[in-house]
């Protein structure tokens, strides 16, 4: 059963240096506040996993929390590139960043395998691309019935997955809706999970399109209203498109970034 705790407690207890950590969210419901708490608590050597690492991953990388990134699309959606991510890859600043690079279909299937207790998933993908030449976690597999050649990717089983959802009840059952991405799979694939929510309520009244994660499938729930900002939580907040646009300027320059980090996260 999920415990209801503060975000600081959840990160202290459940995220350790060296962990493989997935903060998932597909444009919607990105657990930004949890990412900032990880920065504040000074975690190091993390293997960060996410299909769409965006601003909060740029911040984690720039803050020196990450040793490796497992991903399929790293950008500032609707704006452009991630400058801290680029600086780490191109110039090893503030530290070298190892990459394990997939496509979205590959990452999604890796989470599905992880959630399913399987060591790998089968898909049609990567054929003819250069990705298998730089990523060792892509292998061919043959159908035992037809002889057809397909692609296998290994399960992702993060040490801890962090997501943001709209609501939880007091028993720790989690409810989210709208674009729900790959968050259910990421939580079920993980050894531990932290869910920040807009609010903890007495009842989870049903919502069309809802995904419910039962309390017994979650480790910790923390109430953090606005915890997805500048991303959004459908029914609670709108996407702060200006923040995404402004991030481009803040993140281009190391000094500007470090000033931002000190002022916006560390103090």
């Amino acid at each position: 059963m999920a415990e209801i705790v503060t975000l600081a407690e959840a990160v202290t207890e459940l995220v350790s240096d060296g962990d493989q950590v997935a903060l998932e969210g597909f444009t919607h419901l990105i657990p930004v506040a949890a990412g900032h708490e990880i920065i504040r608590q000074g975690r190091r050597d993390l293997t960060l996993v996410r299909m769409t690492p965006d601003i909060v991953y740029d911040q984690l990388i720039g803050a020196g929390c990450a040793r490796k990134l497992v991903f399929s699309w790293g950008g500032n959606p609707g704006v452009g590139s991630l400058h801290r991510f680029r600086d780490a890859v191109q110039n090893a600043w503030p530290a070298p960043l190892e990459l394990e690079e997939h496509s979205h279909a590959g990452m999604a299937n890796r989470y599905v395998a992880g959630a399913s207790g399987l060591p790998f998933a089968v898909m049609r993908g990567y054929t003819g691309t250069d990705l298998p030449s730089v990523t060792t976690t892509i292998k061919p597999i043959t159908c035992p019935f037809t002889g057809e050649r397909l692609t296998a990717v290994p399960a992702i089983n993060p040490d801890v997955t962090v997501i943001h959802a709209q609501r939880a009840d007091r028993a720790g059952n989690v409810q989210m809706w709208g674009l729900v991405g790959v968050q259910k799979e990421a939580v079920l694939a993980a050894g531990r999970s932290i869910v920040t929510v807009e609010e903890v309520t007495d009842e989870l009244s049903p919502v069309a399109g809802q995904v419910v994660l039962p309390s017994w499938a979650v480790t910790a729930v923390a109430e953090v209203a606005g915890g997805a900002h500048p991303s959004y939580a459908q029914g609670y907040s709108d996407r702060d498109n200006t923040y995404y646009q402004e991030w481009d300027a803040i993140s281009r320059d190391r000094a500007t970034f470090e000033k931002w980090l000190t002022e916006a996260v560390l103090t």
Partner: protein
Amino acid sequence: MTGTSVETSGHAAHTASEMMSVAAARALRDGTSCFVGIGLPSTAANLARRGHAPNLTLIYESGALGARPDSLPLSIGDGILAETADAVVGVPEVFNYWLQPGRIDVGFLSAAQLDRFGNINTTVIGGDYANPGVRLPGAGGAPEIAASCREVFIVVKQSRRSFVDKVDFVTSVGHGSGAGDRARLGLPGAGPTMVITDLGVFRPDPGTAELVLEQVHPGVTVQQVREATGWELAVASEVGTTTAPTAGELTALRALTGGPDGKEG
């Protein structure tokens, strides 16, 4: 986005970017389904749906099937997509149940680099993979969109930097190393059948699968297109001229983007 404004008789002034979006939108047939890649394609696909193709089904990798946004989403995961979609599904389902089996008519992609066979690079430019000159965002959904959709349209701003003889990294396969390569690789879809840039329109040669310039946009010369192409460009024996954006198209496009210098999807 800014660009040189072009005036054509009987048509409103438009930028090269606007011409590109309008030409790309026109390529989408009504009643078909389109997997909308991140970037320029979203502008064009939404323009098509608001114009000649009201029954175009837009599929976003964020899980929105049949989205009908009334304004242009800034990202492929805006709330307006879920709110207006016929169905909202999880990301694994989008790729496994909807894209992978070849249900989608058109994959609509952009590119950082594109080569003469329509192969796409959105991974790294220059240097090598471990020490790249420029690190780009990466693959996203594109490799499997390019593989599995019945056909692929690519919309990209053209220059010698983006139109290269050979992409530095094959993120998504177009026609590989030429005709027959997709079949040899076992890729189910037909691959890129049209490339739309801010200068013109290209289609693969049926014999060689190499991109051929078939149309220039109003005010653009074949020579200009050659100069913005990083290989010796094949040109159709008769190069047509794209019909300039109509007033209606421009009005609809600007309503979506917020004006000639507006945002893109």
